[in-house]
């Protein structure tokens, strides 16, 4: 176990090193001059030069990179060209909102997707199976932004059950920051009204975002389950008279989860991508908007910072997936 974690952490350093090089180069190879964007219309050459010197953009690329890397090791992602603020702080301000949205969407997708996948497999080629599969096809084929808008139309505009934007009603003050997840912070804060309000705000964006993932999970679990249900050990279990429920859970699902988890975990990255769209539709104050603005403003340090953080998240997710598989599959523990 410890060896696995150590090996993975070593990998993490290498991956982040690679990511830093790639993002750094990409940012500098792409056309467009950030100084021009910053200096405003019709700047003089002197203004441009002074800005370049100020941000170290006049130095050779390797020198710029080494400076960037050493800052990175100190947790310093640089200074935003647009806002002149430390990017680390900006990301810390926006990231928890995105992470909260993505995590809740992911948990919903798992919590609903796995049982549905199991039911579809156990009741293969029956009405329940068809309905679940249709539902899953919907998740894969309905564009996220459209699904989100339809939800807003129904649950906000028509029924008025749920709020359409933001993390919290304006008249309520945000809960004291402990984790950065509003629903957890509100729970600790003990304010029932805030907590319920936060949950209400979470429902639509997380469902819209989670639906895609859910569809994916249903299909994955269904196919792994079908595979497990056709295995010899399942037949042996049946021939030994074990109960249906026990067989489905401990024999089939337990084994089907091993391939599923790996794939589901890796797809977590696509949730982060989907979050950008969801945040736009539901006006969620997360990383999505921050990144969009950074890209439009050619704010290279901010884009690089975002990329590094996402890469870090991705590697950590992979580590968690590995640990989970490790605990589920005795063969990996040998």
């Amino acid at each position, binding site marked *: 176990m410890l060896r696995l974690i150590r090996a993975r952490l070593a990998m993490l350093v290498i991956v982040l090193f690679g990511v830093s090089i790639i993002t750094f180069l990409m940012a500098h190879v792409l056309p467009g001059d950030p100084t021009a964007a910053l200096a405003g219309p019709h700047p003089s050459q002197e203004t441009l030069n002074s800005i370049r010197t100020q941000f170290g953009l006049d130095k050779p690329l390797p020198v710029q990179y080494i400076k960037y890397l050493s800052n990175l090791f100190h947790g310093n992602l640089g200074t935003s060209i647009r806002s002149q603020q430390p990017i680390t702080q900006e990301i810390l301000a926006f990231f928890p909102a995105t992470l909260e949205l993505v995590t809740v969407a992911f948990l919903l997708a798992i919590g609903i997707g796995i049982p549905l996948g199991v039911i579809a497999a156990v009741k293969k080629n029956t009405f329940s199976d068809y309905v679940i599969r249709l539902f899953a096809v919907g998740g894969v084929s309905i564009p996220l932004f459209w699904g989100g808008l339809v939800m807003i139309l129904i649950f906000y505009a028509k029924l008025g059950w749920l709020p359409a934007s933001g993390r919290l009603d304006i008249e309520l003050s945000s809960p004291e920051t402990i984790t950065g997840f509003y629903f957890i912070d509100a729970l600790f804060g003990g304010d029932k009204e805030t907590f319920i309000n936060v949950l209400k705000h979470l429902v639509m964006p997380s469902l819209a975002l989670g639906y895609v993932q859910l569809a994916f999970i249903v299909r994955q679990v269904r196919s792994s389950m079908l595979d497990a249900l056709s295995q010899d*050990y399942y037949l*042996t279990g049946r*021939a*030994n*008279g*074990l109960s249906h429920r026990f067989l489905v859970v*401990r024999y089939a699902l337990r084994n089907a989860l091993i391939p599923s988890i790996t794939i589901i975990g890796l797809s977590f990255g696509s949730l982060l991508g989907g979050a950008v769209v969801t945040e736009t539709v539901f006006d969620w104050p997360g990383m999505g908007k921050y990144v969009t603005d950074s890209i439009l403003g050619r704010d290279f340090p901010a884009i690089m910072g975002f990329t590094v953080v996402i890469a870090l998240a991705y590697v950590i997710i992979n580590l968690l997936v590995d640990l989970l598989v490790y605990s589920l599959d005795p*063969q990996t523990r040998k």
Partner: protein
Amino acid sequence: MSELVLEIKNLSLSFDTQGASASILKNVELHIGPGEIVGLVGESGSGKSVTALAISKLLPTQITKFSSGSIVFNGIDILASSETEVAKLRGKRIGFVFQEPMTALNPTMTIGKQLFHVIRRHSELTKTEALAKVRTALEEVLISKPEVVENQYPFQLSGGMRQRVVIAMAMAANPTLLIADEPTTALDVTVQAEILNLIAKLAKDHGTAVLLISHDLGVIANSCSRVTVLYAGEVVESGIVSEVLRKPQHPYTQALIKSLPDIADRDSLLETIAGEFPDLRNRPEGCIYAPRCPKKFEACEVRPMLRIAKDLHSVACWAVETTEK
């Protein structure tokens, strides 16, 4: 004769998939008395495993269609019983050992736990008693270090060891009938003998009747008292092992025995059965073996019934009848 443990009468079934129907078993007859070891032989696709699975109603329900006959286990009409009723027999009254020990055990559960759950399922034992039973069950199948093995996962055991565990699970509830479907086919020859001896010993100790399925006549000869020969889902011959194997009546059984390799005779070519296995989607009207049979004559266009040629030795062949007249 005391009451039969298993009596299969006139059993016919087919697998119906969209548009196509394959007749897998046709008028199969088989019976097993208490404590008796009966062999079921036949080549691949002859319906041995289907017969075995049918006894516990483990065939895929969506495509399996029973068209005639009955399976009576200890006086219980299996085909007329509900899934719940049959499920109560599985593991408790009817034990099963399958061909492939490498995949027959749940890969993510320790040996001890798998046995434990089977034991708990079929008994009123407390947790502690069941755990103790796990130990003795493993000892009974001659596993030398049960305290180690019970904490191991299947992938840590050899094929022979796994098959012992599978046998221990099948015998855990002391069933009346043990169905062993090619239990040694996937194993080394040396291990094969050990497993067969183990099954025979357990059956004797517990008074369990055994249906031993094999394509290996040697296995059948060593272990069984009676044997039924299956060809393309039909019983062609059945009787006391020594009778059937020494004096086979049916041309198929004769050909089967001739096609056994002889280690002393390395120069001559191995005898094979000419022709092809019949297409079960279009089962011929007459004798199923006729297309490949050297003794074929006009009568074979009508399907021969299984009839007694000698004491307890039944044969489904017109040629046998005529030679005896």
